[in-house]
């Protein structure tokens, strides 16, 4: 997550002070990724050092106001224009765990899969309940048509959707892993009867794929 660009984008809308920036960020993303105020100020310091923002006096109540510079505006423009880089997949602990489980003799892989499935499903149920409540607040129609509600509510809905789809993808991947393991077990059982010696190298190849995915 780019705190730097998020704050710049908010400053492009209007000059603001630290707590205001944190409040706006959390309201628009449904407090999904809480920011601590220290992070906000460190980021503002760095942005100022790079001449992307400048101090703009205070609001009369002791709050230091920041406003965006032209260079800052250009930076925001190019952030929105560029796709989020996906070249380095983020480290996926679950994929790593499963890959290791598959290659270690003493681990019950289906138990690992099922425990994760259950946990992810609970999470999905919670997201779905929140989404349903948020949709009601945003005035979304029963047929899925977005209502003319508040833009911040709508933004939060889309953030929740993102979490829902990501969790769904994880569950689908778990189904996929399980199906793959079942097939592999069936093949192994078959080859046991024809050729009793299984090739050990085969065991590792698919697990490697899971990590690089």
């Amino acid at each position, binding site marked *: 997550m780019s705190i730097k660009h998020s704050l710049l984008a908010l400053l492009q809308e209007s000059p603001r002070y630290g707590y205001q920036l944190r409040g706006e960020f959390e309201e628009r993303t449904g407090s*999904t*990724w*809480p920011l601590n105020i220290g992070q906000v100020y460190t980021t503002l310091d760095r942005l100022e050092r790079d001449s992307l923002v400048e101090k703009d006096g205070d609001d009369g109540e002791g709050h230091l106001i920041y406003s965006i510079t032209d260079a800052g505006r250009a930076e925001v423009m190019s952030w929105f224009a560029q796709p989020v880089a996906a070249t380095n997949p983020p480290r996926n*602990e*679950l994929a790593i765990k499963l890959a290791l489980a598959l290659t270690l003799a003493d681990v019950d892989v289906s138990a690992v899969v*099922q425990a994760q*499935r*259950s*946990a*992810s*499903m*609970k*999470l*999905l*149920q*919670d*997201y*779905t*309940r*929140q989404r*349903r409540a948020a949709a009601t607040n945003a005035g979304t129609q*029963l*047929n*899925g048509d977005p209502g003319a509600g508040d833009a911040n509510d709508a933004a939060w809905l889309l953030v929740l959707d993102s979490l*829902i*789809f990501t*969790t*769904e993808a994880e*569950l*689908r991947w778990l*189904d996929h892993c*399980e*199906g793959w393991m*079942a097939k592999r077990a069936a093949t192994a059982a078959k080859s046991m009867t024809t050729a009793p010696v299984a090739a050990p190298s085969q065991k590792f190849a698919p697990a490697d794929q899971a990590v690089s995915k």
Partner: protein
Amino acid sequence: MSNEILQLASVSRTYGEGAMSVAALRNVNLTISAGEFVAVMGPSGSGKSSLLTLAGGLDKATSGEVFVEGTPLGGLSINELARLRRRAVGYVFQDFNLVPTLTASENVALPRELDGTPARKAKRQAKDALRLVGIEDLADRFMDQMSGGQQQRVAIARAIVGQRRLILADEPTGALDSATGDGILEVLRNRAEAGAAVVMVTHEARHAGWADRVVFLKDGRIVDEAASQHDPAVLLAGMGH
């Protein structure tokens, strides 16, 4: 009477005999109360449809007993069973099972009329149900004049018409696009909140996410269950992984 709408007690179902027999369900125990929305998930062939047909009294258990609102289905005559199904159970079949020579609203009204509801009232209830699933303007179409997704919605309307207390739905969103599917889930959820017990078989995790409880089947057995805790703190706690 308690608010247990559906109970499966040590239910097994074996198809065929001898070497060719298939154990579709093995010793399944499941209790579902009024107001609960339960999703059933599992790989193809794990016994999901078998569980649903037994729960709906469309098939008989090899052993064990199925109770609907406390009544053991095993002891009912064919007529009594048919009556219970029409009155208390709404069933959405995986392959819809609609009557091709009837219009959408006739299909939906049929079980009500068979059960003695005056035709006029049944028609009106059918209209309401079709409106809930978003196709009231197609009420007078015949099945071969409707798309797969539209037929699926007729099948859902037929299951929810007349406030049935037990709604059993086998892949009710299979033929629907995601926005329409969400609309149907909302309808099922509302039915549960109005006091029905809803059991939905689905392959889609995102749809199972609408349920209060998710039951996982594998090789005819319930292997696990996920019940959401209604605790918002979980939302943030879950962000880390």
